[in-house]
């Protein structure tokens, strides 16, 4: 049972681990479960949600909200018509224009501090006042200001990772040297796994995650050719409800829902 809304940051050490795929489909799945969900693209250096959702214009971008030039209401787009059942799905987008990306890359510490304040204020404006059950933050990879701001603001951090060696090493360091310092509840999602067909294979992955990362494993996502073929063009949770990937997302969403 949900007592109050939760902020979930989806982060990774390296790019290309499936953060956006996970964020979008998790948001859609939670909305399909009847939750009121808000999904924010906080990857200001490589915005992708606007392309994935085929939205070219909006009254305000999240860049404007963090710059303090618009209220959060004006940066919200209602996509609830794409969700079955009674769920609600709202998105906030990062501006994909080159000039906007350049502008966000040149922000100083004081701007980042004010941006943190505005992200923290979302708990009141979205979760408390508007009654959202979830605010999902799709972040930039690695240790960048915008992603660390999102982690500090979050109640739960989902780390998308693969078995790529440099990703494993970097993720392990990040868990110990960043998340531990902020005392964040963290769960790992292993993506693009080649062999999870057998029970023994799953147990081996579970054991590896326990040994290497020492944090709970939320889910294992096999490497699906269908996902690669879709090239980021579809939201599986909406368009392919019977797909194994959607089923895995449903299990993850149920686990998150049950977390206190």
């Amino acid at each position: 049972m949900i007592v109050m809304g939760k902020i979930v940051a989806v982060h990774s050490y390296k790019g290309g681990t499936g953060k956006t795929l996970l964020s979008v489909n998790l948001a859609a799945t939670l909305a399909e479960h009847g939750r009121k969900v808000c999904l924010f693209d906080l990857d200001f250096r490589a915005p992708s949600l606007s392309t994935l959702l085929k939205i070219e214009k909006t009254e305000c971008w999240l860049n404007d909200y963090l710059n303090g030039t618009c209220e959060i209401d004006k940066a919200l787009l209602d996509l609830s018509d794409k969700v079955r059942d009674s769920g609600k799905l709202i998105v906030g987008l990062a501006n994909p224009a080159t000039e906007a990306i350049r502008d966000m890359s040149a922000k100083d510490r004081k701007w980042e501090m004010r941006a943190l304040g505005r992200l923290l204020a979302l708990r009141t404006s979205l979760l408390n006042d508007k009654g959202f059950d979830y605010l999902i933050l799709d972040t930039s990879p690695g240790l960048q200001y915008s992603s660390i701001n999102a982690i500090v603001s979050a109640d739960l951090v989902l780390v998308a990772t693969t078995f790529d060696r440099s990703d494993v090493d970097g993720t392990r360091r990040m868990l110990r040297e960043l998340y531990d310092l902020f005392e964040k509840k963290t769960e790992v999602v292993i993506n693009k796994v080649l062999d999870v067909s057998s029970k023994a294979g799953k147990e081996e992955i579970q054991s590896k995650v326990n040994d290497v990362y020492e944090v709970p494993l939320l889910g294992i996502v096999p490497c699906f050719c269908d996902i690669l073929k879709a090239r980021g063009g579809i939201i599986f949770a909406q368009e392919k409800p019977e797909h194994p990937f959607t089923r895995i997302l449903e299990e993850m969403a149920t686990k998150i829902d049950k977390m206190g």
Partner: protein
Amino acid sequence: MANQEVAGRKPLQVLEKIRENLERLNDKMEVMIELQKHGRKDLQQPLPDAPLDVMTLLSMPDHLRKTAMTLCRMGRATADEISGQTKRARAVESAYLNQLVIMGHLKKERNGRKAYFFVDRENQR
């Protein structure tokens, strides 16, 4: 008549002033106690307005980070309210909060008997 009023009010004002001064003295003593406990390394470079950004939070000693993070979440709070979240003693939180004020990361203002701490994000330019 006027003399009686002055005579009746003055001791109260004096006592109130003494109480305020004692509270300020207490705050300073708590900071000194904490400084002795952790050494002076926390205050090596006190800045008048040091932004409390995430990198600053990361570089803080653990005991101060916990207090700063809690205040970031709460926005504005007393030492007692912070203590309720961190489960550490009020006097300890008061000392850490005052340390963070001295370091330039937080602001402090009094409202009657209560001292409120907050991050002044908007006024830092």
